[in-house]
């Protein structure tokens, strides 16, 4: 850099360096001082000015920075004698970029390049500008210019990548691929290629055009030697051969790869695909949906004649057996699992039978049954078995335990695997649990009576046996480092699953609390187990103690890209919670991560260009687009604004500031209109979710027990897509509807007071009506029918059931309908007679009735989960809050303002009717909020010890009793028997800190924390309504 400094607009380096040093050490004031003295000496140096603008921008003075930067740019343009050096330009570029004015930066480089058309540095700078702007065509043109100038391979590849980007991410047609190919071909003929990545790009362009033969020829020619790792080359060859339909040669290639990498499962699937002449595994790429890939490879039923099919299958079997014989590594599983895949294909072809699959499963179990990955390895193969065969397989598994593995950890691993297979097949919940007794006996050598085998114990006993096995296995982990996962950890997750199932069946909260205790206990022994934390997070969420759920979420330290894939565990619950501060942090951190990435991504793309990793260029651009289309990102953007509106709803002036910053909600209406045509991406990783809530929208525990365990979990992405669209479409109308409602309310009173009907009033009215129609349509009704529903429910003619699960949307609709009606001269229901007061009353009634119903339905925490709490919170913080704003707007407009004094006592009929409605509304909302507050206080004020005792009492059971508490009893009775010799010092130490009482107390305190926050919200609203009451009394 030193030499470059010397060239910076002719300023000596010694003068510039102190400025850079100060900037680097973030001493901006000092930097500015140096910059001022530099400018005194060189007032017309664009570089000196650029530096000043950089400092100003860093100091947060954006406007000043822009103006100085524009000055520098003007000077640069004006003074022809000055050098257009890259350092000045890149400094300007940095500032313009940070000021979100990429266009100005590009303009500078375009100008510079037009003045010095053969300066490569400037052209690279310009290319970089186009990369930042995602202008693929201009990138291509600039790269071609550079290529023509110096003939370097890399610039040609920059152009080719820019062309590919037009095809993949732009509007470029297929002809462009031909153009790219032509360019490469010509270059290869004269200069050959020197970079492996260039070859990969060349091949992929041919592949895009289905020119597999040509690609293969190139690969096997001289250029092929660019790929140093043999397997990499073979993989490409195999794929090209298969895609060209030359399956026979393809199979040979894949054999070669498997000989080199015998554990490569994907390669084996390709091999089998080639043998059976089935190309599905190449067309159905992993990359179509990287987050929710298919569990088993999609394959077509083979069209081969039976004879050929048999011979191919024999070939594959012989090859796999050979691989088995050739590998001595005990950890190589592929050649063994391969047998299962071959049997599966046979079955799909109608030539296999379940017995062979079961036998292959057994063989695989005998070799790898102790591994934690066994059940996920075989999951896809279990799915093809009939229920009877699954049971038969399980029976065979049990039999193996007659002679369990001699190594204790292996024996434990096998036993856990059997439990997992039972869970996976759903049999855990159907089988008589005598299986468990049998299993436990084998592992722990506990005495058991054979007769018990035929005595179907209950599911609960299964959990008891699992937890006993867990206790029994603890000594195996005595010497492990606390950072290492312990043997048998999975058992407690499975116990939790069974207990939740029991809760679902019996509705006995004791089981639910027990599940919590089991996991908390496990985390006391080793606090790093994320699987337990996620389960606990969901248990606490369902219980209604979201504050504790959030604590566990925080302990997972989810950051960066994990916020995109993992925050679904907490975000939806938080959106409906009163923990606004925490929710705000959650949304802010997530959006910051995403926006930072969008800002940086182009520079990283350019880095890939510079380092000649061309395939990464395409990958980066596609990835950025994928994140930009993330459904969660969209939801978070809308919800951040809704949160701000909720937080400020008690003060109309503050709310108006929020709305102003949201451009009165106009952008969100546009978003709502566009959402239907947008392709959304779903990047959430749902694998770690518990069975009872496999996606954010589903919670099976809310419904009645249906005799299912929902294992294995379904892939529900498609179903979600529709739902997310609907949510975003509706939610993004909110800001605008709130804005229009406030204005509609004030216009209605102003107009009547001023008696000169304003145009803006009717504009507002027609826009609001349009949005109401839209809103009604989203609820599945026409406007008039929706009005009828709302009226019907309010008057009691219809029940709340009419709202379905969209209750909040319906009541919001009623609120905005009322606001529109205030300023509309159209009758609500043309064929009915009604007075203005009618609709005020409807909204009040709906809110009051619904809120009181929710309060009544909620028992204390220790009786049942508070599943209605989120709805109650939403009712108060959304529709009630928006209605409050309409009221505030009415009151404000009715108050005598300084200049325009209303004629004393001459209020017209409309205004007085409205104000009567407002008065009644304030009274009834205030009353209902007081009731909510009273309910909350009632909960908070319960003696803590009493609540704690209630929680614990549901668990105090003796082992022999049935009902909740048996599992917990096993854990508690472990503690006295713990000793250092057997369990090791660490486990003993940790267990000393265990206290069920502390956990119960934590639940009660967590509940109070949450409710206190809700109480604060209610009290603030009550205060605001009381103030309004006083104001209105003066009118």
């Amino acid at each position, binding site marked *: 850099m030193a030499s470059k400094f010397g060239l910076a607009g002719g300023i000596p380096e010694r003068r510039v360096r102190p400025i850079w040093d100060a900037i680097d050490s973030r001493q901006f004031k000092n930097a500015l001082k140096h910059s001022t003295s530099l400018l005194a000496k060189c007032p017309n140096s664009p570089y000196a000015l650029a530096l000043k603008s950089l400092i100003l921008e860093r100091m947060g003075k954006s406007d000043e920075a822009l103006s100085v930067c524009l000055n520098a740019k003007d000077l640069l343009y004006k003074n022809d004698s000055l050098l257009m050096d890259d350092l000045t330009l890149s400094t300007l570029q940095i500032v313009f970029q940070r000021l979100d004015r990429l266009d100005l930066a590009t303009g500078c480089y375009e100008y510079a390049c037009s003045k010095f058309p053969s300066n490569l540095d400037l052209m690279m700078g310009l290319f970089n500008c186009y990369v930042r702007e995602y202008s693929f065509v201009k990138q291509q043109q600039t790269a071609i210019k550079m290529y023509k100038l110096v003939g370097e391979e890399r610039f040609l590849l920059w152009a080719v990548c820019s062309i590919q980007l037009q095809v993949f991410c732009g509007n470029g047609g297929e002809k462009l691929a031909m153009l790219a190919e032509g360019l490469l071909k010509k270059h290869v003929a004269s200069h050959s290629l020197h970079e492996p990545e260039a070859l990969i790009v060349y091949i992929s362009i041919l592949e895009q055009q289905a020119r597999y033969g040509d690609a293969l020829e190139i690969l096997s020619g001289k250029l092929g030697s660019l790929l140093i790792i043999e397997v990499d080359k073979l993989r490409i060859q195999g794929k090209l051969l298969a895609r060209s339909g030359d399956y026979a040669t393809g199979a040979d290639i894949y054999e070669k790869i498997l000989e080199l*990498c015998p554990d490569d*499962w994907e390669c084996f699937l390709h091999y089998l695909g080639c043998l059976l002449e089935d190309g599905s595994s190449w067309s159905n790429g992993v990359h179509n949906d990287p987050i929710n*890939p298919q569990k088993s490879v999609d394959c077509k039923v083979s069209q081969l004649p039976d004879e050929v099919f048999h011979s191919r299958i024999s070939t594959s079997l012989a090859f796999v057996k050979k691989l088995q014989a050739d590998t001595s590594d005990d950890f190589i599983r592929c050649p063994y699992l391969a047998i299962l895949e071959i049997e599966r294909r046979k079955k799909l072809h109608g030539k296999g039978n379940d017995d062979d699959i079961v036998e292959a499963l057994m063989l695989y179990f005998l070799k790898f049954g102790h591994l934690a990955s066994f059940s996920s390895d075989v999951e896809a193969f279990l799915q093809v078995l009939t229920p009877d065969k699954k049971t038969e397989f399980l029976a065979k598994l049990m039999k193996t335990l007659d002679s369990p593995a001699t190594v204790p950890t292996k024996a434990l691993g096998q036993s856990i695997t059997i439990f997992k297979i039972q869970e996976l097949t759903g049999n855990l919940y159907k089988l008589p649990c005598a299986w468990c007794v049998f299993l436990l006996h084998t592992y722990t050598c506990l005495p058991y009576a054979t007769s018990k085998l035929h005595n179907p114990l209950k599911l609960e006993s299964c959990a008891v046996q699992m937890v006993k096995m867990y206790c029994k296995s603890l000594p195996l982990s005595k010497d492990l480092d606390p950072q290492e996962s312990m043997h048998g950890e999975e058992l407690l997750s499975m116990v939790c699953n069974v207990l939740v199932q029991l809760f679902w069946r019996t509705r006995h909260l004791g089981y639910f609390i027990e599940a919590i205790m089991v996991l908390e206990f496990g985390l006391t022994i080793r606090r790093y187990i994320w699987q337990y934390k996620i389960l606990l997070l969901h248990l606490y969420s369902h219980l209604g103690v979201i504050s504790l759920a959030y604590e566990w979420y925080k302990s997972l330290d989810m950051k960066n890209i994990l916020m995109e894939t993992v925050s679904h565990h907490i975000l939806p619950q938080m959106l409906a919670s009163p923990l606004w501060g925490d929710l705000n942090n959650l949304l802010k951190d997530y959006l910051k991560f995403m926006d930072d990435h969008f800002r940086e991504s182009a520079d990283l793309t350019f880095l890939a260009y510079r380092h000649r990793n061309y395939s990464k260029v395409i990958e980066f651009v596609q990835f950025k687009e994928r994140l930009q289309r993330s459904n969660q990102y969209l939801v978070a953007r809308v919800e951040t604004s809704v949160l701000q509106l909720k937080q400020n709803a008690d003060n109309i002036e503050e709310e108006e500031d929020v709305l102003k910053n949201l451009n009165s909600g106009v952008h969100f209406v546009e978003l709502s209109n566009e959402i239907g045509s947008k392709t959304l991406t779903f990047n959430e990783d749902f694998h770690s979710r518990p069975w009872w809530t496999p996606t954010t929208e589903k919670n099976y525990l809310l419904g009645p027990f249906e005799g299912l365990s929902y294992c294995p979990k379904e892939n529900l992405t498609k179903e979600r897509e529709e739902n997310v669209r609907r949510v975003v479409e509706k939610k993004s109308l909110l800001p605008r509807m709130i804005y229009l409602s406030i204005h509609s309310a004030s216009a209605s009173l102003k107009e009547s007071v001023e008696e000169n009907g304003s145009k803006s009033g009717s504009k507002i009215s027609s826009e609001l009506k349009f949005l109401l129609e839209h809103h009604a349509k989203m609820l599945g009704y026409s406007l008039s029918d929706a009005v009828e529903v709302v009226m019907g429910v309010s008057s009691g003619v219809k029940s709340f059931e009419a709202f379905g699960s969209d209750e909040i949307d319906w009541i919001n609709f009623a609120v905005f309908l009322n606001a529109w009606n205030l300023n509309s001269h159209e009758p609500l229901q043309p064929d009915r007679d009604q007075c203005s007061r009618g609709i005020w009353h409807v909204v009040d009634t709906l809110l009051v009735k619904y809120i009181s119903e929710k309060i009544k339905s909620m028992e204390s925490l220790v009786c049942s989960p508070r599943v209605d709490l989120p709805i109650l919170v939403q009712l108060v913080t959304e529709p009630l809050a928006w209605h409050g704003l309409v009221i505030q707007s009415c009151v404000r407009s009715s108050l005598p303002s300084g200049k325009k004094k209303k004629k004393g006592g001459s209020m017209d009929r409309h205004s007085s009717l409205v104000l009567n409605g407002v008065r009644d509304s304030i009274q009834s909302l205030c009353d209902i909020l007081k009731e909510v507050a009273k309910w909350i206080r009632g909960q908070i004020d319960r003696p803590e010890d009493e609540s704690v005792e209630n929680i614990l009492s549901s668990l105090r059971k003796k082992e022999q009793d049935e009902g909740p508490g048996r599992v917990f009893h096993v854990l508690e009775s472990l503690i006295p028997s713990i000793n250092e010799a057997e369990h090791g010092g660490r486990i003993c130490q940790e267990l000393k800190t265990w206290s069920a009482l502390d956990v119960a107390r934590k639940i009660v305190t967590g509940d109070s924390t949450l409710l206190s926050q809700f109480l604060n919200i209610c009290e603030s609203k009550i205060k605001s309504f009381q103030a309004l009451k006083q104001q209105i009394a003066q009118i």
Partner: protein
Amino acid sequence: MTTIRRFSCNDLLRFASVNLDHLTETFNMSFYMTYLARWPDYFHVADGPGNKVMGYIMGKVEGQGESWHGHVTAVTVATEYRRQQLAKKLMNLLEEISDKIDKAYFVDLFVRASNTPAIKMYEKLGYVIYRRVLRYYSGEEDGLDMRKALSRDVEKKSIIPLKRPITPDELEYD
């Protein structure tokens, strides 16, 4: 059952089950993407059946002269796939690339001095403790710089342990 292939951006959306582990750091995007953009051959993922991420390794190649070396920035394996020698496979791959393609002299890595299980594993793979870096981890915990010589370092000069510990600012590379 390990298909080891180059790591791609989409794998960032799939690696949650690996990164939820408390010892696996989730870096910011520019960190991952810089590695992908500069050293794609040093960033690999291992896929298991059902397209599950079993683990991954990220690293780079850097240095001058005889300190031209491969560096392991992170290697991690999902809980479900531990105790199957997957980390060894991933490490061997990075060593092979450093050795055969980039002709490096050695491979090095940093590990928390308290992370005994990891240190033991690296020792089994042929790494030796080259030197201690005082307060390397957030200014609190010492780091151990471990090295393994490659074929180009015929005399194994690169792994002769340094006698004294060093401070992070004495490190040649980040």
